[in-house]
């Protein structure tokens, strides 16, 4: 360990050479824009996490707590809205996607670099507007259900405009990626030679382009109702309150796949590299990403089984919902099969990738109870649901993000991470996460509703367990972030290809030069040719 030794300067800082605010703020380099997105989104992950810690502290006691019930409601709204709209939706696509799509397909930049920079600043402007709404903070939950959201005194209109802007930025980024993937692949990179991360980002971008306009329009309708009293949603004004939920979930269900598909893409890259085996069922994984993207548009009603929607609609939506489970299951089986007879390196990226699978299985299986009509009636809007989506989003997507950050850290910074600290952080995170969120399944089955500032005392024990878990989780995340910060400046200089991976980003310098490749590579094969050819096992 070079613990106390002074940091070794990098021989070549590549795309990081130019310093200063202007050089970053006006850059057209997709890598720098990706890094800016990464810092922005991770910052809001930490802010959202702080709110979560306060929420959990409040829930230690069943009665009135150290924050008022109204403040509690504001806090879970801010927590949810930040985590969903400002963190998870853009986190992997806009940061790692921006950085690595051109590198993985052997391009020098995205198709529209100026638009890319514009998207970033639009995103930041949107966040500023969102923060403007804190003057009279939102208390509606991140779901904005009307007519509560059309009646509350909180600054819903301002927030809606802010999210409209970040949504616009998401659409532009999605378009940019679709065009980039179609047009800028290196010579020889056919569709079936594309890394699976690219397939995942392609499916994600399509959802973003098609679904985001719907939520944008919904926010505008909401604003129109609040500003001009036009009755779209409030029955007192002649509107229909379920209409809002249909619009909202028509967007927000596909968007849960925007949250999970990119992480699945990262897992599909990490597993073969660390198992030294070809990915099992390449085409099945690639097409299941597209299948998920398509089917995800047909199942929004499974959020509304008890909303008062018709029974027939409920039955149809439940039936379709189980179709999404099939491609998702295929992916999980394929990843596990890839491990078979591998030569597995349990380095930190792999640990996070395996943790993703571990949590995602739990998240997926608990989804069965929510997709089946009879059982959803009971656990809908309880902590069972809160447990389910934290297992998929935090336990899944965020673990995928962490896997990606550990995997690509050497490429992005030109330095290696401290493995020991990375593994220590992982241990705290996996223990803390499960202690925090597993009790929620039991709480939910016992009937504890979500969004409850106060609750009957019989639920207290499990809430205390969960809160203690959140402290362990916090320690793990703190260790991980400190490790990132420290190794960004002091880590050992990284070789171009520390993991001996075959995808193109590793065939160029760490960190890459501004134009990525000295000469654009010509691709002759798929990127998963690990293992001995002609030896197909037993």
């Amino acid at each position: 360990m070079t613990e106390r030794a002074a940091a070794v300067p990098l021989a070549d800082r590549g795309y990081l050479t130019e310093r200063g605010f202007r050089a970053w703020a006006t850059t057209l380099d997709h890598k720098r824009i990706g890094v800016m997105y990464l810092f922005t989104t991770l910052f809001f992950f930490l802010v959202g996490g702080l709110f979560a810690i306060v929420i959990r502290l409040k829930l230690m006691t069943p009665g009135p707590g150290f924050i008022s019930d109204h403040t509690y409601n504001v806090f879970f709204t801010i927590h949810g809205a930040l985590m969903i709209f400002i963190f998870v939706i853009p986190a992997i696509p806009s940061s790692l996607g921006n950085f690595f799509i051109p590198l993985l397909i052997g391009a020098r930049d995205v198709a529209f670099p100026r638009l890319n920079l514009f998207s970033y600043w639009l995103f930041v402007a949107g966040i500023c507007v969102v923060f403007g709404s804190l003057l009279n903070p939102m208390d509606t939950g991140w779901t904005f259900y009307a007519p509560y959201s059309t009646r509350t005194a909180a600054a819903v209109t301002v927030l809606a405009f802010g999210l409209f802007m970040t949504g616009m930025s998401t659409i532009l980024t999605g378009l940019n990626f679709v065009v980039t993937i179609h047009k800028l692949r290196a010579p020889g990179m056919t569709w079936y030679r594309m890394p699976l991360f690219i397939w995942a980002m392609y499916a994600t971008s399509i959802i973003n382009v098609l679904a985001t306009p719907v939520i944008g329009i919904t926010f505008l309708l909401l604003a129109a109702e609040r500003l001009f009293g036009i009755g779209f949603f409030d029955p007192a004004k002649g509107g229909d309150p379920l209409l809002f939920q249909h619009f909202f979930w028509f967007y927000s269900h596909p968007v849960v796949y925007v949250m999970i598909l990119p992480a699945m893409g990262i897992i599909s890259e990490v597993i073969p590299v660390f198992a030294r085996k070809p990915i099992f069922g390449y085409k099945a994984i690639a097409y299941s990403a597209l299948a998920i993207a398509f089917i995800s548009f047909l199942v929004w009603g499974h959020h509304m089984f008890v909303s008062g929607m018709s029974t027939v609609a409920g039955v149809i939506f439940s039936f379709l919902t189980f179709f999404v489970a099939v491609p998702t299951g295929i992916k999980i089986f394929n990843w596990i099969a890839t491990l078979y007879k591998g030569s597995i390196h349990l380095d930190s990226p792999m640990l996070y990738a395996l943790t993703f699978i571990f949590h995602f299985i739990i998240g997926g299986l608990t989804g069965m109870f929510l997709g089946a009509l009879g059982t959803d009636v009971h656990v809908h809007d309880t902590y069972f649901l809160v447990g389910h989506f934290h297992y998929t989003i935090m336990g899944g997507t965020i673990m995928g993000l962490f896997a990606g950050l550990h995997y690509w850290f050497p490429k992005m910074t030109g330095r290696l991470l401290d493995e020991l600290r990375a593994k220590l952080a992982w241990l705290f995170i996996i223990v803390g996460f499960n202690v925090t969120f597993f009790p929620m399944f039991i709480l939910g089955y016992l009937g504890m509703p979500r969004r409850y500032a106060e609750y009957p005392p019989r639920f207290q024990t499990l809430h205390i367990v969960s809160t203690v878990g959140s402290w362990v989780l916090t320690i793990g995340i703190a260790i991980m972030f400190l490790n990132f910060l420290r190794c960004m400046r002091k880590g050992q200089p990284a070789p171009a290809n520390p993991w001996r991976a075959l995808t193109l980003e590793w065939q160029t310098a760490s960190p890459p030069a501004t134009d990525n490749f000295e000469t654009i590579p010509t691709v002759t094969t798929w990127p998963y040719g690990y293992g001995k050819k002609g030896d197909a096992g037993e």
Partner: protein
Amino acid sequence: MPALTFLHGEASRSAGEVDGAFIFIAAICIFFFLLTQGFLIYFALRYRRKKGEPDVETPYITDNHTLETVWVIVPSLLLLAIFAYGYVVFIDLKSPLAHATEIAVTAQQWQWSFTYPDGRTVVGELRLPVGRPVKLTMTSRDVIHGFFIPAYRQKQDVLPGRYTYLWLEPDRVGSYDIFCSQYCGTGHSLMRATLVVMPAAAYAQWVEQQEAKARQAKAGTEPLAEKGEELMEQSGCLGCHTVDGTPKVGPTLKGLYGKSVPLSTGQSVTADDDYIRESIVDPNAKIVKGFPPIMPTFRGKLSADDIRAIIAYLKTLH
């Protein structure tokens, strides 16, 4: 089904049925959980390479059609079975019960009120005789709420401007929580009520008492304070205020009359008749320190006589 009752009591047939579906799905899920996590962890450890050891040569396996067919078909069939079970239970929960007594449920921020066929309205408590099926016809006065009885595994959102229904079979005597499950604002988590399932005789006796009281009110022989108490229940005051000394969304009304009330402006005011009247018709004129300015006005809803009755009731709360 004896089912998951060890976890929490099954209080009606619907609970047993939902638990049956739960157990069925759980059995499938536990099987797949063990299968997938088992292979995941086993492979990760079995084929693990220690630091410093050279790579072993790995086989070049890219797919296996038999295996892949099996793991598409088998889970698909199980998924269909899960869907079907969930469907059957759901349809049963939604099916009308013969000879059901109809009770109207009104939700408003932040209380539940129940109106019986004889016209009586009770707030915060739904009393039912055991063994007689019930149909709840529910609507909301303001935003969306959710009517949730965990012990029955039953839940249904309650919408403004529309009716939704729920059929209950109170099979077992006891008292059970009713929660609001759809977020509805500041007092959401306090929007609870109790379902009391009583033996038939005790229920009849309770109805008798209630009806006597109602007759008295109609004849105008009811004491002013009692009328005030009823008005407070019916108007929704108790959604936010208690009369037992604990603050809720708004300050408690116990011991309010004649007390000095601290205001958000830093001043304070004595709670006399006029202050109480103003707080009812123009609630935002003076805000009690530490509480949000969210109380709606009751101007036009409560007459001068009504307010007098309420003040009379408040005077009795010491």
